[in-house]
C-alpha cells in the first residue's frame, strides 16, 4: 500500500512536469490513473442512467460537454472547485470523504494537460462481478485426511488433527465425565444436568454411555427450546413491533413455537427454509406452511411509517423501502450468510451484488406486509376450507351470472319461465347457504403474525391483495431518486438456477422460486452457512468466525475442507440437525478438556484450531433457566403466548413496559426464558446486562462481557432474590439438617460434591446469615456461570 502510494506520487510529479508531451502519454495517464479514480469515486452517482446533479462522467462527451471540465484551464473548471476543500469541507464526493490532496492534484494536472479522454474509453459503474471467492465455489466433498492416530475417531477429528499437526499443536486429554455431561447437557438443552443424571453417567460402565446420554438429550423437548433461541437471535424475533409506539404483537408466538416444534421434530433443513419463505405456496393446507412465514415478519416494523403516513408520501415510501430491506436482509443474512443489504445504496463494494440484484430481491417481497394471518391448525380443516371457499366463489359467480341473464343485463337471452327462473335462483341460494353454514361450522382459525397480502386495513396500512408493489432501483437508496423498475430475481451465483424471474410472475411464485433457490443442491452458500452456525454453537466460534457473512468482508474459514465436508454430509444426508449434533458431540475434538496448555497457548492462544474445548459463560437465558431449575421453581409447560416480566401500562398510546414494577414471584413467569414476551423497544434490563441479543439486529453470535452491572444484577435483582428464597425452601423441605442442605445446594449448582472446606465455610455462613443468603451467593459462583 505504502509502495503504491509512493509510485503514485512519483508518477504524478513526473506527469505534472511532462504532461505537455505527446497525447499518447496524456491518454495513458487518463487510462491508468484518472479513469480508475473517477470510476471509484464519481461514476457511482454521475453516470448516464442516474445523472445525479444532471451530470454524467461516464463518457468523454457527457463529461466534457457540460462545462464542468475546461481542457487546459484548471482555474475555470468547476469540477475542481467541487472537489477542493473549503473550510475543511468539499462539495463532492458526497459520501466516503474528500479526495486526497494527491488525487485532486492528479485531476488538476490532467485538465491542465488538455483533459485527454480517449474516445474508446467509457467508464463503468463500479461493481464486483468476481465470483472468485471461497464461499461462492461449488461444494464438493473433500476426502478426510488419513491420520492413523488413535485420537482421531471420526472424520471431524481427522480434519482437526491434521490442522493441529500442521500448526505444531497437540490435542488435549478428554474432559472428565462430570465436566462432559455438564457441557453436553448445556449445549444441547440449555439446562444443567440433575445430580442424579450426573451420578448415573459417571458410574455407567456401558461403553456407549456417552452416546446414550446424547440420544436422551436429543429426544428431550428441551432441545428444541434451547436451539430455537439461537435461531430466533438470527431471525430478530420479538413480541412487539419496535420503533415509536412499540405496538404489541400478540400473535407472534406461534412462529416461536413453530421453530421449537420444527427443531424437536428434526425437520429436514430444506423444508424448514422453504416453509419460512414460501410455505403457503409450497405446502398448501399445512399449518407450518403459514406459521413459518412468521420468519419474514419477525423483525421490527414502523407503525407510524405504515399506518399514519400514506404510501404516497416520502416518509411512507422510506418506511416501506426499509421494511422490505429488513425482509431481504433477514432472509439472505440468515440462509446465505450474505450481506446483500450493502447494495441498497450502491453496488456492493466487496461481494458480487449489484443494486439491480438487490432491488430484484426487494421485488420478491413487494406484495407482502407484516400482519396477522389466519390459519387452520388441522390440515384437514385447511383443505376442507379451501374446497368450500372455492365452491362458494364458483356458486356466487354462477348465481350472479344467472341474475344478470334474468335481469336482461347479459347478452345471452333466456327462455326460462318465471317459475323456472325462481327455482334456479333458489337452488343457487340454497347451495350457497349450505356451503356457508358448513364453512361456519369449521373449527375456528388461529392467527399468526406473518407475511400477509390480505388483512383488515388500518389507516394507511392497506393490503396489496397479492399485487406486487412497483419496486425501483433507487439511486443512493433514496426513494426520491427512482431509476428503472426492478425485475424480481435471485442472485447469479455460478452454477445455480437461472437468476432472473419473469416480471409477470405472481407474488407467491416469486417467493416460492426464492425458497427453491435457497435450498438448491448447488447453492454454494446455504449449506455452508447452516453447518457453520451449528458448529459455532458447539465450539463457541464458527469455522468461519462471522456466521452472518461468508463474503469478502467476513472471516476466512480455519478449516475450509472440514466446513465443506460437513456441508456436503448435511446436504446429501437427511439434512438433519440432530444428526449433525451427533457427529459433532461424538467427536474427540468436542470431548477435549478445556484446561490451558502453555505450549499450545503460545502458538494459538485463541484456540482457533481447537486444541482444547473453549470454556464459555452461560447465556442470559441459560442462566435464568438454571436458576429456576435449581430453585425447584421451573414450570416446564411448553408454548403459548409470552409471559410478561414487566407491568404493562398505557397501551392506548405507547405501551410502558415497567420492569421495576414487576413481582418475580409471579408463578406465570417461572417458565423457560424462550417463552418470555420480548418487548423490542424496551429490552429486559436483567437479560440485556447478561448480553442477551438485541432483537432489532440479527445476532449470529452473542457478546460475552463481564461488568460490574452484571455483578449487581446477579447479587440484587429481584428475580435472583425471590429465587434464592425458593431455593432455600426447597433445600429445607428436602433435607433434615443444614449440612445436607449445603451439600445438596452445591450439587445442584455445580453438579459435583462439595469439598469439605466448602461445606465447612458454607455451613458457617448459612448458620449466621440464613439459607436464603447462602443460595443468593451460590447464584454468583463463577463455577455456576461458566461451562468447562
Amino acid at each position, binding site marked *: 500500500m505504502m509502495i503504491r502510494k509512493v509510485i503514485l506520487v512519483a508518477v504524478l510529479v513526473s506527469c505534472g512536469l511532462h504532461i505537455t508531451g505527446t497525447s499518447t502519454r496524456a491518454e495513458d495517464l487518463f487510462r491508468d490513473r484518472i479513469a480508475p479514480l473517477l470510476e471509484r469515486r464519481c461514476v457511482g452517482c454521475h453516470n448516464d442512467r442516474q445523472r445525479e446533479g444532471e451530470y454524467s462522467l461516464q463518457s468523454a462527451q457527457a463529461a466534457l460537454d457540460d462545462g464542468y471540465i475546461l481542457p487546459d484551464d484548471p482555474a475555470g473548471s468547476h469540477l475542481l472547485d467541487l472537489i477542493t476543500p473549503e473550510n475543511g469541507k468539499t462539495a463532492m464526493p458526497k459520501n466516503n470523504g474528500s479526495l486526497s490532496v494527491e488525487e485532486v492534484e492528479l485531476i488538476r494536472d490532467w485538465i491542465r494537460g488538455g483533459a485527454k479522454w480517449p474516445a474508446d474509453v467509457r467508464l463503468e459503474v463500479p461493481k464486483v462481478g468476481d465470483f472468485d471467492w471461497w464461499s461462492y465455489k461449488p461444494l464438493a466433498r473433500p476426502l478426510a485426511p488419513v491420520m492413523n492416530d488413535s485420537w482421531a475417531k471420526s472424520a471431524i477429528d481427522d480434519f482437526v488433527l491434521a490442522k493441529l499437526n500442521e500448526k505444531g499443536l497437540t490435542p488435549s486429554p478428554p474432559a472428565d465425565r462430570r465436566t462432559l455431561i455438564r457441557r453436553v447437557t448445556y449445549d444441547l438443552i440449555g439446562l444443567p444436568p440433575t445430580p442424579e443424571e450426573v451420578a448415573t453417567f459417571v458410574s455407567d460402565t456401558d461403553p456407549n454411555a456417552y452416546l446414550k446420554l446424547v440420544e436422551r438429550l436429543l429426544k428431550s423437548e428441551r432441545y428444541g427450546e434451547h436451539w430455537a433461541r439461537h435461531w430466533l437471535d438470527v431471525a430478530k424475533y420479538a413480541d412487539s413491533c419496535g420503533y415509536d409506539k412499540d405496538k404489541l404483537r400478540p400473535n407472534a408466538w406461534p412462529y416461536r413455537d413453530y421453530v421449537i416444534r420444527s427443531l424437536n421434530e428434526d425437520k429436514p433443513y430444506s423444508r424448514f427454509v422453504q416453509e419460512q419463505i414460501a410455505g403457503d405456496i409450497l405446502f398448501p393446507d399445512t399449518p407450518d406452511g403459514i406459521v413459518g412465514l412468521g420468519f419474514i415478519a419477525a423483525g421490527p416494523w*414502523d407503525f407510524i411509517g405504515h399506518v399514519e403516513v400514506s404510501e404516497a408520501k416520502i416518509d411512507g415510501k*422510506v418506511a416501506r423501502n426499509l421494511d422490505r430491506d429488513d425482509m431481504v436482509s433477514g432472509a439472505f443474512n440468515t440462509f446465505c450468510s450474505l450481506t446483500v443489504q450493502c447494495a441498497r445504496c450502491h453496488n456492493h463494494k466487496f461481494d458480487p451484488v449489484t443494486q439491480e440484484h438487490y432491488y430484484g430481491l426487494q421485488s420478491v417481497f413487494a406484495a407482502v406486509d407484516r400482519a396477522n394471518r389466519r390459519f387452520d391448525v388441522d390440515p384437514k380443516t385447511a383443505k376442507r376450507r379451501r374446497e368450500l371457499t372455492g365452491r362458494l366463489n364458483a356458486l356466487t359467480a354462477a348465481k350472479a351470472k344467472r341474475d344478470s341473464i334474468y335481469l336482461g343485463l347479459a347478452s345471452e337471452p333466456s327462455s326460462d319461465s318465471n317459475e323456472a327462473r325462481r327455482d334456479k335462483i333458489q337452488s343457487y341460494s340454497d347451495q350457497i347457504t349450505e356451503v356457508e353454514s358448513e364453512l361456519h361450522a369449521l373449527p375456528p382459525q388461529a392467527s399468526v403474525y406473518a407475511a400477509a397480502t390480505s388483512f383488515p386495513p388500518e389507516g394507511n396500512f392497506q393490503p396489496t391483495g397479492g399485487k406486487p408493489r412497483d419496486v425501483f432501483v433507487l439511486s443512493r437508496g433514496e426513494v426520491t431518486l427512482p431509476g428503472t423498475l426492478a425485475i424480481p430475481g435471485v442472485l447469479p451465483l455460478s452454477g445455480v438456477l437461472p437468476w432472473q424471474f419473469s416480471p409477470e410472475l405472481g407474488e407467491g411464485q416469486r417467493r416460492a422460486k426464492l425458497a427453491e433457490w435457497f435450498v438448491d443442491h448447488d447453492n454454494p452458500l446455504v449449506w455452508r452457512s447452516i453447518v457453520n452456525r451449528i458448529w459455532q454453537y458447539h465450539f463457541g466460534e464458527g469455522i468461519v468466525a*462471522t456466521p452472518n457473512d461468508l463474503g469478502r468482508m467476513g472471516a476466512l474459514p480455519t478449516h475450509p475442507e472440514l466446513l465443506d465436508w460437513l456441508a456436503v454430509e448435511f446436504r446429501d444426508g437427511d439434512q438433519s440437525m440432530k444428526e449433525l449434533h451427533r457427529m459433532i458431540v461424538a467427536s474427540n475434538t468436542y470431548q477435549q478438556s478445556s484446561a490451558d496448555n502453555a505450549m499450545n497457548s503460545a502458538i494459538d492462544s485463541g484456540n482457533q484450531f481447537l486444541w482444547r474445548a473453549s470454556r464459555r459463560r452461560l447465556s442470559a437465558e441459560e442462566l435464568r433457566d438454571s436458576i429456576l431449575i435449581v430453585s425447584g421453581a421451573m414450570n416446564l409447560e411448553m408454548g403459548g403466548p409470552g409471559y410478561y416480566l414487566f407491568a404493562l401500562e398505557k397501551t392506548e398510546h405507547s405501551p410502558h413496559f415497567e420492569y421495576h414494577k414487576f413481582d418475580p414471584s409471579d408463578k406465570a413467569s417461572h417458565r423457560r426464558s424462550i417463552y418470555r414476551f420480548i418487548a423490542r423497544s*424496551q429490552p429486559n434490563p436483567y437479560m440485556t446486562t447478561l448480553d442477551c441479543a*438485541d432483537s432489532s439486529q440479527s445476532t*449470529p453470535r452473542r457478546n460475552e462481557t463481564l461488568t*460490574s452491572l452484571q455483578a449487581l444484577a446477579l447479587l440484587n*435483582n429481584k428475580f435472583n*432474590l425471590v429465587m434464592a428464597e425458593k431455593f432455600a425452601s426447597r433445600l429445607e423441605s428436602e433435607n433434615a439438617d443444614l449440612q445436607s442442605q449445603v451439600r445438596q445446594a452445591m450439587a445442584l449448582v455445580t453438579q459435583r460434591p462439595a469439598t469439605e472446606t466448602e461445606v465447612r465455610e458454607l455451613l458457617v455462613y448459612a448458620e449466621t446469615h440464613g439459607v436464603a443468603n447462602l443460595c443468593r451467593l451460590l447464584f454468583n459462583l*463463577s463455577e455456576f456461570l461458566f461451562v468447562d
Partner: protein
Amino acid sequence: MRERNEMNNRRSFLTHCGAGFGALALNAMLQHEAAAANDGVVQVLHHPAKAKRVVQLFMGGAASHIDLWDHKPMLEKHHGQASDFGEKVETFQDGLGPWMKSPFKFSPHGESGKMLSEVVEPMGEHTDDLAFIHNMVGKSGVHSQATYLQATGFQLPGFPGMGSWVSYGLGSMNDNLPTFVVLPDHRGFASNGPKNWGSAFLPASAQGTAIFPQRDNPIEDLSAQASFVTKAGDSAGLSLLKRMNRRYQEERKGDSRLEARIRSYELAAAMQLSAPEALDISGESQATMKMYGLDRIGATYPAEINPAEEAEYFGRKCLIARRLLERGVRFVQIWSGNDNGFPRRNWDSHENIQRDHGPLARGMAVGTAALLKDLKQRGMLEDTIVLWTTEFGRMPSSQGGTGRDHNPYVFTNWLCGGGIKGGVTHGASDQWGYKPLDRSSPTQVYDIHATILHQLGIDHKRLTVRHNGIDRRITDVHGHVLTNILT
C-alpha cells in the same frame, strides 16, 4: 481483512488473550482493568483532545427552532396569511395552515445580540458561549426514525448511541460509576426508549445506564430489596464468594475472564457506595438549588403543564448531571419529553405551541442555564461539550390555528464548551425557517457527531467496528468536522 478478524474490543481481549502476553504484561493489563471498569479501544488519541466529557440534551417530540432560537421576522410580518412555500411540501399531518409567528417575544442577548425567545430567556447570559447551527436537516419526519438518526446516526433500530461509541472509544474515567449515564424523562421514555442508548453490537459495557434518582433503586439492582438481606450477610457473603471464585480461577490458569469476574464484584461494591452519594443533592447550597429551579421541592403543582414544575424536573436532572460529571462520568444524556402521548409532556406541539412549548422551554432553559453556569464556575466547561438537540424542527405554517406540524427539513442544534467557539452561528435557515438558506450545504447529524468526536481526540472515520460484514462507524459514510465553530 483477509486474516481471521475479531471484534477489536475488550471482550475479545479478555476472551482470547492468554499466554500470548507475558505474565507481567497480562498482570498489568488486569490491574488497569481493575482501576477502570473498562478501557477504551482508542489507546492513543488520534489527535490532542479539547474535551473529555459530553452532555447531550435531547428534546423528545421535536422542539420548534422558530419558537426558541431561530428568530423569523418574516413570520411576524406575514402572520395569518396563507402559507406559500414556493413548492409542494409534504408534512406529517398536512399542517400547512397560514404562516404563524411565534407566540413568544424575541429580544437580543449578549454581545452577539443573538435574538432569543422569551421562554428561553434564562439562556440569555450564555449566548456568547453558544455556537448555533440553524441549518440542521433530518431525513424523516417520523418520530422514531428521526430520534434514532439524531441519537445513533442511523434511522433504523439496532445501532449504538453516541454515548456508547464514546464509552467504547475512550473508556471510563472513574472506577465506581458508569461511564455513560442517561437521565430519562421520568414520565415516560421518548420514541424508541432505551434503544436510543443501547450498546447494540458494541459490548454491553458501552451501554447507557439509566438513572432514575427518585426510585428505590436509582440504578437497576444497585441494592437488594429483600427482608433477608443484611449488611453483615452481604459483607461476609462477598468475601466467601471471592474465596470460592478465586479457587475456581486458580484451578483454571490462563483465563483472564475469571480474574475479571472477581474484580467486577469489587467494582460493583464501589458503585454501591458512590452512586447514592453522587445522587444525593441534599448537601447543595440554597443558592445552587434556586439556580437549578429546585427551591420549591415538595410543592404541589396544578394538573396543567406549568413552568415551575418543568423547571424542577429538568433542573434536578441537570444538577445530578453536574455531580456525575464531577465524579468522572464521561457522557450524560438528559431527556426532556415523554412518549408523545397526551396530555402533552413532550415537545410534539401539533395542537398548541404556546401552551406546551412555553413551560417545557422555560423549564429546560432554567436547568440548562444553571448547568452551564455551574460547569463554568467550576472550570469544567472548558473540557465538557454540551449539545442541545432534538428530533427535527416544526413548520412555520400553523396546524389547527395554534400548533405546528413536523419539520424535518430544517431545525436547530447548539453546542457549547469543550473548545467550541461561542457567540457564533454556523449555517442559517431560510426566511421562514422552512429549509436551510443554502440548500446545497446543510448540516447533518453526522457533522455534529464528527465534531464532538473530533473534540474528544477521535477521528470519526477511525472509530469502527466490523459487524455483519460492514465496518460500522457512528457517521456511516458521512461526516465533516465543523471547523469554523472550533476555537
